[in-house]
């Protein structure tokens, strides 16, 4: 989907992130990036190039040492940690390489947790939406199982369903297929493509998988913490 005319949903302006350790480590440097609503962007680069660090900055999990991060045009620089958490809760959804599902809870409970925390829906609505999301990913029959009773692919689909729980505008994925076999990798890849193409969500995915990266209409390639190329197909 071309998103050239859409409004920016996330903007990085002159963002640098340096880890202040005994020897300071620069994770990303001088990043200027505009992600528009409905874009499907893959982020690639060699190991240690700053792909994941860039994703964490885009997702407000990490704060820049320099520069600004704008969400829906609003500068988040002065936000408190609580306000950043509120933005993540309402507007952003994360999928990681490992599913990170909570082992004590059922599949359905894992998916509904963000909705319960947001508190916009009542109990019945939360249950219905949770089941609908699981059905979208064809795992509604696993709703009452615990994560350790599912296959890797199923768990990752649950993780995607959880990321979509609060109907976020942006999905940020860090190597979402990195821990899956080829078949499950293709399924998850298809899900992300559909999220952007059919649901109009913004998807930003860090990946080593060339097929996954090629499936995205836009690719940002990082080398040594800087944007080496930003190409649209």
């Amino acid at each position, binding site marked *: 989907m071309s998103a050239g005319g859409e409004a920016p949903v996330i903007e990085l302006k002159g963002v640098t992130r340096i880890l202040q350790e005994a020897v300071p480590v620069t994770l990303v440097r001088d990043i200027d990036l505009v992600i528009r609503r409905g874009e499907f962007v893959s982020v690639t680069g060699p190991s240690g190039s700053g792909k*994941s*660090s860039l994703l*964490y900055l885009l*997702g407000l*999990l*990490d704060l820049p040492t320099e520069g600004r991060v704008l969400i829906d045009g609003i500068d988040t620089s002065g936000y408190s*940690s*609580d306000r950043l*958490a*509120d*933005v*993540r*809760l*309402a507007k*952003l959804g*994360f999928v*990681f*390489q*490992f599913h*990170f599902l*909570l*082992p*004590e*809870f059922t599949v359905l409970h894992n998916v509904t*947790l*963000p909705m*319960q*925390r*947001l*508190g916009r829906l009542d109990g019945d609505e939360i249950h219905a939406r949770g089941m609908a999301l699981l059905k979208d990913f064809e795992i509604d029959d696993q709703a009452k199982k615990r994560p350790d009773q599912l296959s890797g692919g199923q768990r990752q689909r649950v993780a995607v369903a*959880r990321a979509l729980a*609060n109907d976020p505008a942006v999905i940020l994925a*860090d*190597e979402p297929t990195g821990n899956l076999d080829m078949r499950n990798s293709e399924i998850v890849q298809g899900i992300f493509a559909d999220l952007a193409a059919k649901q109009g969500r913004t998807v930003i995915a860090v990946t080593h998988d060339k097929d996954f990266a090629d499936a995205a209409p836009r690719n940002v390639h990082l080398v040594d913490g800087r944007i080496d190329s930003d190409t649209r197909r």
Partner: protein
Amino acid sequence: MFWRVSMGIAAAQLRHRRRQTLVSTLGVALGVGFFVATSALMSGSEKDMVQRLLDNAPHITIKDEFREAAPQPVFIAFPQGAVTLTNTKPREYLRGIKNHGALVEELSRQPGVVAEAALMGQAIIRYASKDASAGIAGIDPEKERFLTTIESNMQQGSLMRLKTASQGIVIGQGMSIRLGLGMDDLATVVSPAGLVRRMKVVGIFRTGNLLLDEGQAYMLIKDAQVLLDKPFIANRVRIKITDPDAAEDYAAQLESRWGYRTESWQEVNRDFLGLFLVRSIITYSIVGAIMAVAAFGIFNIISTVVMEKRRDIAILMSMGFRAGDIERIFLVQGVFVGLIGMFLGWGLALILLQMLGTVEITVPGLMDTQKLPLEKGPFQFGVGGAFALISAVVAAWFPARKAAAVRPVDIIRGAT
């Protein structure tokens, strides 16, 4: 809603670690149970002993003596005198409380005050070739009924018979057994003044206190005055007031008003009451240590959960949970353990109190076996419960703060 989410996560994590949760909950329960049982025992025995003290003696006693010897007239006349006098002998004065009748009358006019002039002394009671030393209390039987519980402890006869019988005496059961002296028998009573009287036993009491039952005898004050050769003299004014706890202040007022040494029951038993304090400190320190161990148990389990759950904490924060939500999750776990431990502890305490209530003991100085005195009031349960909850919250607070301080990106970066 936020609370429900936090509580749901907390409950799930506790359920997931059933064994650890059970161990730490039992730790709290044991602490609460033993705290309540020990506290009930300590408080019960203290109240029991204090009640015995109050039952067998007046709340305040005015004595025919002074706290400090009167200064020599020469020292009053020449306080800065150049000559020092040594080895001066205080003037001898007739013992007894002057104008005790007026004093008693004035005190008795005050609401809630019962006052009685009494003459106390020593005598030998002799019967069938056996002697027993006895403290003699010359009393007014009408008032003695309100001052002590002797009347209600009468096994045979009564104090009131002192008024109707000529030369009557009331003795304790211990003395009665020791001398073989029964009701209506005539005992020979010899005073330190050398006077000998034949007196008839008109009552036998039993308080359970060995000192009283074997060593105290009561008679009319006028008989005691004759026996002790102290006509018209009373050397004690014995007072009972409505609130025993106010005795110390009231005694001080009376002493400053009349000048005579005035002792409250607290002053008389100061050493004894001091022992209660030491005993309480020791006991509560031990029980406090049990609670501290239980608190460390909670601290340990929640710290472990926080360490194990760092990844889950990070993912919850990446979802949009605030640091406060995370802190609440672990605090709630502490409160859960504290609450459940408190209720289990209360149950355990009830069982322990039930068991302790059946134990019979013989207290040194008392004649009868008695059941352990227990105070089963809500206070002990309340304090035990509060102690458990506060310990649990404090123990959970530190790891909860640590959990809230987790930076999700550090964990996620390390995990991927």
